[in-house]
């Protein structure tokens, strides 16, 4: 009896999945080729790419993993130089800027085509930008286009006639962009940010995607793009395979045959994939592995400066943090050098100002400087001699091992130097962001990564109308300088104004800068033509692989 029931049952259970294996072999082919790296003489670059891309629509996505893929698939008017990310001709082969800096005319190249062979014209760009600004699309990065005349009004639904917005197709090959006011760093945004990429209007129309997100146009079987690569296959949570675009104008420079993007969220898993040769480059590297890599695989470890700042936000609406002496005392009382060397350990540099030193030729002169003695005096002057009577405040961070160890180290430094107790509170990411929006915190851990290479990105945050300020701090003088800077005649004049803004920030300290980021990853020595860049963007034009030894 038992044999009749149990054994067939077990046998069936064991055999069922095997029966299912047959159909899997075809999907295995991509990966089989992938694990061989340069199978059949193909040069395949395999990238660990963080989380699964939300979508491939350049006007919808917002994340870094998506950005890395979009660089391969699309190209804007301008593109980035692989070595230093400076703007280079993309779809536009040249451009003129009017004397007042408000009117840009882009001359599109004659051979600019989509991957299905459809030509790209100035109208394609105008209609792409119209879509980006369509209120119903609710594109989160639409504000990147708000520099153009009336773009904001159209985006907010206050204007319905798009012909009044500053995008005009003068003819098929000439696109005119008129700005509200001169934007000295416009070309950098155009080169580095995907919000300015064109989208294939003729394909979007077929899928009803002109004013709607979430349509099927970005699926592997439908998507058409204009960058060096096109989507060949996309298996969610497994791999996205991009192959050469035969219609790309600069295809002669592309040496890679395929790029495989692997969405690997777990750092340890990713590191193991790299070790077994499944990946050529990782998205990141567990901090705990840095020392091992330094010793055992020094030729694969990469620690490169990354244009971002790690900081703590003060809620200046709450006592005692509404007193700038207290903020200054807290900011002076920590030892950033030690923190970076012993706790963070990824080659980061201590931050003594919010702006990143060396962003497009700008380095803030104003620096947070002072001794622990001075910190103690400031705290005493604020009414808390030797920390006595200092109210209990909390430091909020999002749940993560790395943020916790940094917070604990800083908590101890404050205890030792100022004799004050700061509580630690961790919250899950979305709860944490909600607390940030509603300012339900005393001190909050934060970070900011630049979207393009200009000091503007860090100084923009602290104006009173910035949506990302979240400190409750506002300063009329700072706002005035910000507006002035945009009207500056040249970068030298503009940077001088930024110096004054950075000085205000270091004096007022709405936030306490801690360190400037590095990107930490493993890179196979076979990968050539890969250059460290401040935005951690790596255009595919220069990259190639040496044959495996």
């Amino acid at each position, binding site marked *: *009896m*038992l044999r009749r029931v*149990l054994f067939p049952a*077990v046998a069936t*259970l*064991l055999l*069922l*999945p095997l029966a*299912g*294996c047959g159909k*899997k*072999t075809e*999907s*295995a082919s*991509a*990966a*089989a080729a992938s*694990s061989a790296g340069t199978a059949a003489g193909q040069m395949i670059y395999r990238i660990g790419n963080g989380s699964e891309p*939300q*979508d491939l*629509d350049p006007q*919808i996505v*917002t994340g870094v993993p998506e950005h890395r893929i979009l660089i391969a698939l699309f190209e804007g008017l301008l593109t980035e130089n692989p070595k230093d990310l400076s703007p280079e001709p993309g779809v536009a082969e040249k451009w003129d800027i009017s004397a007042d800096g408000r009117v840009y005319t882009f001359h599109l190249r004659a051979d600019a085509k989509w991957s299905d062979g459809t030509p790209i014209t100035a109208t394609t760009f105008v209609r792409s930008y119209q879509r980006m600004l369509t*209120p*119903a*699309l*609710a*594109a*989160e990065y639409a504000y990147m286009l708000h520099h153009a005349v009336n773009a904001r009004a159209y*985006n*907010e*639904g206050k204007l319905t006639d798009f012909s009044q917005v500053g995008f005009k197709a003068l003819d098929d090959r000439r696109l005119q962009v008129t700005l509200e006011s001169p934007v000295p760093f416009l070309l950098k945004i155009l080169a580095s940010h995907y919000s300015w990429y064109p989208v294939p209007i003729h394909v979007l129309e077929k899928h009803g995607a002109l004013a*709607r*997100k979430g*349509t099927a*146009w970005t699926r592997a079987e439908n998507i058409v793009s204009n960058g060096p690569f096109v989507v060949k296959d996309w*298996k*969610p*949570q*497994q791999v996205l395979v991009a192959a050469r675009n035969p219609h790309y104008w600069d295809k002669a420079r592309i040496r890679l045959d395929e790029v495989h993007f*692997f969405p*690997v*969220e777990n750092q*340890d*898993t990713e590191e*193991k*994939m790299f*070790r*077994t040769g*499944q990946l050529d480059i990782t998205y990141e590297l567990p901090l705990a592995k840095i020392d091992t890599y330094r010793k055992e695989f020094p030729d694969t470890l990469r620690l490169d400066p990354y244009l971002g700042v790690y900081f703590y936000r003060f809620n200046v609406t709450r006592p005692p943090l509404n007193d700038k002496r207290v903020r200054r005392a807290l900011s002076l009382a920590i030892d950033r050098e030690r923190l970076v060397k012993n706790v963070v350990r990824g080659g980061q540099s201590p931050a003594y100002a919010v702006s990143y030193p060396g962003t497009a030729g700008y380095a803030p002169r104003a620096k947070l400087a002072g001794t622990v003695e001075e910190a103690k005096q400031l705290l005493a002057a604020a009414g808390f001699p030797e920390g006595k009577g200092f109210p209990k405040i909390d430091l909020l961070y999002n749940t993560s091992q790395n943020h916790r160890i940094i917070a604990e180290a800083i908590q101890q430094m404050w205890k030792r130097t100022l004799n004050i107790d700061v509580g630690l509170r961790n919250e*899950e*990411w*979305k*709860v*944490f*962001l*909600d607390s940030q*929006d509603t300012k339900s915190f005393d001190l909050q851990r934060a970070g900011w990564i630049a979207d393009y290479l200009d000091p503007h990105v860090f100084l923009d945050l602290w104006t009173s109308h910035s*949506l*990302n300020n979240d400190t409750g701090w506002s300063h009329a003088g700072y706002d005035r300088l910000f507006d002035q800077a945009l009207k500056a005649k040249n970068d030298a004049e503009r940077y001088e104004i930024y110096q004054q803004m950075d000085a205000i920030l270091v004096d007022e300290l709405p936030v306490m800068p801690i360190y400037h980021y590095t990107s930490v990853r493993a890179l196979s020595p076979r990968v050539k033509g890969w250059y460290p860049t401040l935005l951690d963007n790596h255009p595919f034009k220069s990259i190639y692989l040496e044959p495996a030894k």
Partner: protein
Amino acid sequence: MLRFITSRFLQSLLALFLVISATFFMVRFVPGGPFTAEKAVTPEILRNLEAHYGLDKPLWRQYLDYLGSLAQGDLGPSFKYPNRTVNEIIGDKLPVSAELGLLSLGVALVIGITLGTLAAVRRNTWIDYVASSFGMIGISIPTFVVGPLLVLGVAIHLGWLNASGWYTSADRILPALVLGIAYAAPISRLTRGGMLEILHQDFIRTARAKGASEFRVVTRHALRGGLLPVVSYLGPAVAGILTGSFVIETIFQIPGIGREFVNSAFNRDYTLVLGTVILYAVLIMALNLVVDVVQAWMNPKVRLEG
């Protein structure tokens, strides 16, 4: 029997409705939403986003809308992955988790029942000690330790298999083994316990007295009763094993439903949270129902009491 099954089925439907309703409202009351992001969006864009997904309607209206489309089998669009629907995501991911689950279940049953039976038959010998230690170790050491250890040994040092992925048939071996061992451990302990109890019963002594071989006594007479505790354990275990394991899927980079279930909660992907919860609830209820029926069939006492 039919009345028993019908009443259990109706109870399950009611429970399912309660689960759906509770989940629907609970996810809404968690701070943060699908569009809460580090970079703030303007209030205008946020309003348009909410309008796009119907989140601007009153909550009760959204609830009724959701139940309406659910009745037609439509689980809605995903918030996190705008170009895919929840139905598609589940359709893509469930088969992967089910495949892994069935393989692991096979591993778990073969190892678990064999070890458990041997331990019971050879009680207090070294075989028993080895089998029992395996059970204890398997229960105590979590998969997130066993998994990386196996990867380190088999993939990195020996280089026999890929460290992770779900591309070739060979990629199935390590995850199925790790997940299988995790379930084999409790199965072996339950089998041992059940078998020990049965082996002391009168009908076993009768079988032996009639001259049946030890093998025959164990396989034909004892196992059927001895496996009862395993069967009741298998109901929820199979539901868990089929719907994927977040840990295993993360360690081995497997595109299964377990990761979607956990990540959807972190992403506040309301529709995907509900979709996966419904899937889990249906599976658990269905399998518990099956277990009840099987138990009734295996054990006359249960059947009579029922």
